[in-house]
Every structure is written in C-alpha cells, then in structure tokens.
C-alpha cells in the first residue's frame, strides 16, 4: 500500500490531504496518468513529485510502502 499526498491547489481539487492506494510497480508517470483519470487536477503537469520526501523523476518506479507527494510550484519565503 502507498500513501499519496496532495498539497495546496491539488489538495483542494482532490478534497483530501492524502489517499491510500496500491501504486507499487508503477512509474511516477504512470501514477500521474492514473490520477488524472480519477480526479480533475489543474496544472498537474507542472508539479514535481517526491518519493519518501526526496524529489524524483517521472521514470522512477514506486516501491511497496513508498510515500508519494505531489509538489506544486512552491511559494514559501
């Protein structure tokens, strides 16, 4: 099982801070496609992705238990 986190406008779009799903074996790109089919995710192509709190690429493969977070363009500071 995997925990998938949403922040800022993505959380507003999904309506949840996170969802639980089985994403093991999928690439980040594949997970993004799957989520795009399930939710209306504005500007989803501009977000970065983190696996276990480290930025990753779309080609990275998700492992069992990984925590995935979608990181919209940041605006701290």
């Amino acid at each position, binding site marked *: 099982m995997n925990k998938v986190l949403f922040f*800022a406008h993505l959380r507003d779009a999904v309506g949840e801070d996170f969802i639980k799903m089985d994403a093991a074996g999928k690439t980040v790109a594949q997970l993004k496609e799957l989520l795009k089919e399930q939710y209306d995710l504005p500007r989803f192509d*501009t977000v970065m992705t983190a696996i276990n709190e480290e930025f990753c690429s779309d080609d990275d493969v998700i492992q069992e238990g990984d925590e995935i977070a979608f990181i*919209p363009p940041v605006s*701290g500071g």
Partner: protein
Amino acid sequence: MNFEISKEPINIQGVIDKVVDRDAGAINTFIGTVRETTKGKKTLYLIYEAYESMAVKKLEQIGREIQERWKGAKVAITHRVGRLEISDVAVVIAVSTPHRAASYEASRYAIERIKEMVPIWKKEHWEDGAEWIGDQLEQVPYPSGKPEVKDLDE
C-alpha cells in the same frame, strides 16, 4: 534543531542565537514579512502550509549547501505556517560566517533556494477571493522534473 517549521510566531532572537560562534565576525539575519500589496492587489492575509517533514529536510539540505560553499558558516532557518497577517514574520534566516561578505551571500542563497525547492505554499486571501500562489513559477522550467542547484549559479 537549526531548521524548523513553526506554527507559532517566530522568536527572531532565538534563531539568531543558534548561529552564535566565537569564530564568527558577522551574523546576517534575513526577516521575510507579509507584504500587503502584490501586483496592485491588496492582500488581507495569507495561509502558509508545508509538507513539514520534507520541508525540514530541504532546509537542512540548504544548510549543508551553504556550509560547503562558505567555510565556517553556521545557518539557522525557521519558516512559519498557518494564518499570517500583514507585516507578520514568515521566515527568519540567520547566517554567521568568519567574515561579513560571506554572510550576505549565504543569506541571499538561502532565501532564493527556499523559494525554489522547499515544499511550502502560500494562499493569498483578497477581498474578492483567494488563490494558492505558485503559478508565477511556471516560467521556471525544471527539465529534469526537479530543481537543480546549478540553476542558482547562473
């Protein structure tokens, strides 16, 4: 704990105290505050949120990057989250270095890096609506899907 996300108002002196060093010749303190007017639009208040555990890790990374670039530097950063009013302190960066020039440079480096890759977001609330800010960064391309250190050096 030199790198923190805080739900409470930031104790500025407390951040400065973390970088006091007998070999330091300078402590540079940057205080980021909530501005009322952005692009002609009046902000009523802001909500900051963070992916807290990752944000702390990324702040720690910035600290390591600074120590690699400016020898002898000590760094402390606290970023606030939650509802902030106009003029409230959103972020405090303290850097001590043996000589003053490096403390200015490292402080600037830290805030630019925060704005680039630390997972913190602000939602601006106006009289006629609200929006998560971040879209303005769409002109910043991340070809590899993530921000790179070298982007800052250009």
